[in-house]
Structures are given as structure tokens and as C-alpha cells.
């Protein structure tokens, strides 16, 4: 469990998070991710941006060609 320790600079946390969003939409993926990485353990907005960036990367890179089908489990109720 990660504890939250508010600081006086929290007043500008939303602005700094919005800066990360701006970087992301300006195609500066790594810069946005690095910005969100800095305070991901303290501020939920940064952790959300950090996770959302990788979520979008996962969706973008999702490719059915990459994965070969593994054999299915037997249907439920059969062994």
C-alpha cells in the first residue's frame, strides 16, 4: 500500500498533470511518461496519467498477429 503525503506544492498538481497531458497530445510520449513517472507514488493524477499512457500504448500495439493461439481449456464441467 502506498501512502499519500500531501505537500504544499499540491496546489499546482493539476496544472503539472495537465502539462503531461499537453506533452502527450504533442506527440512527446516519453516526455509525458517521464513527467507522470516523477510523482506517481504520491499523486493519483500522476499515477492515472502514468497508467493511461501505458494503457494507450498497449491498445495501440495490440496485434493479433503477435499472439499465436494457445489451446483452449476444456469446457467448464469437463476435465
Amino acid at each position: 500500500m502506498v501512502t499519500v503525503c500531501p505537500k504544499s506544492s499540491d496546489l499546482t498538481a493539476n496544472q503539472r498533470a495537465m502539462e503531461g497531458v499537453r506533452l502527450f497530445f504533442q506527440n512527446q510520449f516519453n516526455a509525458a511518461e517521464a513527467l507522470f513517472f516523477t510523482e506517481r507514488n504520491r499523486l493519483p493524477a500522476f499515477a492515472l496519467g502514468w497508467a493511461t499512457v501505458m494503457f494507450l500504448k498497449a491498445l495501440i500495439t495490440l496485434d493479433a498477429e503477435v499472439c499465436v493461439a494457445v489451446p483452449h481449456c476444456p469446457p467448464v464441467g469437463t476435465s
Partner: protein
Amino acid sequence: MLCRTAHRWVPAEVLLTPVGTSTCLQAIAEAQRRLKHLRNLAATQMPKQGVWSSLASMVTGADKMSDAELEGTLVTAEAGLLEAILLLSEESVMAFVKVVNQQVCLRPPSTTPEWISIQSYPVSVCACGVCVLHQAGLSIRSSWKLYEQCDASLNNAVAALKAERVPFVHQVAARKATASLPAKSESVRAPAETGATPAGAGAGAGAGAGAGAGAGAGAGAGADTGALASTAAGGYYDPDGSAPALPEGYSGILSGGASSDQDDAVVSGVLFGMGGFNVYLSILPPIVLKIVSVLGFPSDRLV
């Protein structure tokens, strides 16, 4: 190369193609790891769910949350929704490879679950499709409940929006219009009183901002200036005049309200989550929509 499973060794070629294509699964695993971290962080800000607090909220009827609790609840709901989207996307695209965080297989104990670790990431691959759908369903349900809690704490802003059938896109367009459009030939629906007083109309943002919407449409240049100012205060931009008028005395989210920036961000987050939820519900077949509507989820596509 072999991957260690809970019960046996499985060739890695079954999961990954040979050269440099494991980044797909790595990104998924990393996204799930980060979403789990996000959940843990937001859990520290969630409202306390004790017996006494539950009884107190039942007696007093107060379902208000503090700003921190509201943010934690919203982030938790967001994380759950993203996890569910990730799971459902895998389900639809990969069709066979399923990644789940929770290592519980729903199959009978007599059968042997197949868990496969992906390199060094703490997630596993289950070959059982029931696990994925179960996990995604639980995640979506809990996220929806959290979004409803946030909505209740925000005076049912989303529910009011749905009831009035006012498209949220007009609010977004109104903000863009205030910054860029000269609005010489376009009509801006604005409250009558704010449209009549161009200078300083923005200072009058509040409960009465939406009253009489549509009365200032199609006026001259001076009226356009007033309309734009009142748009910043709470009117909404309507280039083709097809949007319905705001009801009399409306003071909800579309009127600009009396909310702060943080409230605005939270309301936007709730709207995004509920909108995304409805988008993914709309992908489902109609028969599934009927089933989920019986279970308590809205299957209405109008919001």
C-alpha cells in the same frame, strides 16, 4: 524457450512470435501492473467503509464525499474501467490469449488450470476464457458503482444531464467558441438577461445562466458579443440551432454552475467514465444489452 507454468512447462512459441514481437504482451502486462499500482494509491483516498459510517450515512442520508475522497473514488473507477477495456480488447483481438491479474480459475477444481508467466512481469496468462469475462464483468460493475457514487456526490450532474437530453458536446463547443470564433453569422444560444448586458455578463455566472436560452439567438453584432460573453458564463454554442434549450432555472453542469476547476475536472471525469461505459455497452449485441439492463446497467445510448 520454455515458460514455467503452475503445473508444467509450455513452449514460449505458443505465446509469442519469435523476433521482437513480445512488446505487445509486455505493454499489456506493464499497463496492468500500472493500473494495479493506481488502484493501490487511490485506495488510500477512498471513503472509509466502516459499519458506523455506513449507519451514519443511512441515518443522515448524506452521501457527500470530500474532494480527496471524490478524487480517489473517481481514479479507482477509472482504473477499473481501463482494466476492463484492456481485458475485453484482448478478448476480442487475441481471442485465445487472456491476461488476468487474479489467479483464480472458475473451472471446477478437478480440472487443471493453466497459468503461464510472461517473462518477469507479475501477471499470468490463463487459457480459460471464463476467467477473463468474469474479471472484466466484476471490474466494470464495481467501476459503474463508483461512478454512480461520484455522481451522487456531485448532485447527480450526470443523471440531470441524461434527464434533460442535452448533448454535452455543446458545452465543449461553447468553450471553443469563446476562444476562437468571431460568431458573425452563427447563433449562440444564451440566456436573455446575460445576452442583454454584454459587458460584464461573464460575472453573472450562476444559477440563472441557463434561463431563457435561445432568446438571444440571431441578433446583431453587438448581441453577438454579448452572446459570446454569456457563452463563457454558461450559454452553449449551437451553430445549426438544433440543440434543445436549457430548461427554466437550470443551474447544472451545462450552465457553468458555480463549480471550481477541480469540480469541473471531477465532473468531466465522471462524464468520461460513464460515457465510455455506454460506448462499450453499445458495442455489445442487443440480446446482451437486454440481459445487462436486467442486471441494473443502463443500456440507453442517448447519454
